């Protein structure tokens, strides 16, 4: 599923669009620690987290993650937005919490897989 379509499906705001590279999302992973996120990061995974700092982009960049979704409608830190633009990592903000956002995204992805 295209990251823009997924953002729309989970009613998330697309703060920074994906630069070059893969824009397809096949899985979603929600986590609150960097170790968890990096261990589950992959080129077709959307990371969902409430962590709001530039290290998120470093992790995404190292692991070729196409996008990150912050939760609870929080405003992304300016350096996070700037790093996301530089790295070409999509940055989303969901109005709901970590669990609900992750579940909703996972449901969208599984619905799409079922239709494929």
């Amino acid at each position: 599923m295209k990251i823009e379509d997924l953002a729309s499906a989970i009613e998330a705001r697309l703060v920074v669009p994906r630069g070059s590279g893969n824009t397809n999302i096949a899985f979603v992973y929600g986590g609150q620690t960097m170790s968890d996120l990096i261990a589950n990061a992959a080129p077709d995974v959307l990371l969902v987290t409430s962590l709001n700092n530039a290290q998120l982009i470093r992790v995404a960049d190292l692991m070729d993650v196409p996008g990150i979704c912050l939760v609870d409608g929080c405003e992304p830190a300016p350096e996070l937005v700037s790093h996301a633009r530089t790295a070409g990592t999509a940055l989303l903000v969901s109005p709901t919490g970590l669990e609900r956002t992750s579940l909703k995204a996972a449901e969208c992805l599984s619905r799409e897989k079922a239709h494929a």
Partner: protein
Amino acid sequence: MITLSFRIAGGDFDSAGLATRKLKDQLAKLGVDGPALRRAMIAAYEAEMNVVIHARCGTLWARVDETKLDLEVADEGPGIPDVELAMREGWSTASDQARQMGFGAGLGLPNIRRSSDRFQIETRVGRGTLIKSTILFGEAGETQAEPVVVPLGMEGSRCRSCRRCVFACPVGALRVRDSQPLLLDDLCIGCTACIEECPDAVFGIRDSAAALPPIPEGALLLIPRGFLAAFPVRSPLRVLAVFRDLGFAEVRLLDEWDESLLAEARREARSGKLPVPRIPPLCPPAVSLIESRFPSLIPHLSLLRSSAETAGEEFPLRSVFLVAACPGQYAACKRSSLTDRLTVIAPGTLKTAILAHLGALSVERESELIAGPRGTPAPGEAAASGVRGVMRALSTAETGALGEVSVLDLRLCAGGCSASPLICPYPVIAGPAWNVECRGEPAGIAARARPFRQRPGVRLDVDMAQAMLKLSQIDKEIRSLPGRDCGSCGAPSCAAFAEDLVLGRAAQSDCPYRENTP
């Protein structure tokens, strides 16, 4: 080999991860990608963050060659007082600042360990820490190095040309030529059939004469249970006391891991998704025998590492010495070893040291031994040991005549590893005599990343056309031989002799009956 190095500044969260990012660029230029690159990034990033969070400064070194990446991250930090504790998930001493940023979850070191094929920590409190991680550029968890040749040692001068070994070898890997044994390395499966059969002690594990290496503090010794019965003493406690004198802090029996493998094979059989009987890889030579002579049974093998391989890798933070029961087990543990802390030793090496100590020991002290006895096969399961027994069991399994048998327990030494001729000279007592109370933690199992494969055996020629030509020559030679399979030529059969003739391993005159053949 290319060596790269990157400095890391402690406490600088803005630049944190940059060293790993630079490493990624370099690795990409070298063509490293896919899962290997992913694992390298996790290991390097976590190690770099350890420096940023805990140390004043550090350096990341990366050494890359065609087969692997060796990472070393050294820091000038406080060191780790309790490495075992630090390896536990959820344990951390990170600052509040680091925790607020999502670090300090106590998952960093476990993440590095999981992502590495080899992993090691060296630390000194007040001085710093060195983390070593190796990523192999192949299937995770299996070394891609050259296979270790089965270390069957031979004292040719002792050979009297009785040729018993030639007939005992289940894969026809031995010949006797010019009154000397000749081993075909490509065929040898590392069992003890020749060792057991030879009346002149020609065969053994190649390094059995080597001296026992220095034993570091806290070392763990892994042995087959029968090893305790290999000495002229009345109680295994006496032998255990000698282990302590030699410097081993703890002794565990490999039988524990056998039980874990059997339990996993039972679970697989119950799942109904895999062909039965399930064959747990308890005995590396038995696995090699299946790969060589019974390839149709390869799908029945549980995709696990052998008991000894698993045991040898289960304590990456300790110095581990493992007594191999046979050349095959020795080779398997050496081949799959992912840690520098595992030392595989031949039984003879340790026996010499123990016998020297037994003479001086006068007091039997209390010792702890961890393991329980191996029972008889459970209902619905079957067990076979010894070359003949295993060959018959596999032949039967191949025809499908084992019916409802769910698990097949195979050991090429008659009586199992404990009764290997290298382990215990008294096989009758090797099994039941030294049953002891089980006090250990449940032993683990470890998945194999690389599937079992049919062993190709000896290639007749690297060129396919030449190989086919040689095959037809072998066929012709077979027809010209008497077919007695007498072994006078030093080969186990006329067919093996014909192959030897075509490949230049034998002369026509080696067959005494050839002139009389029509």
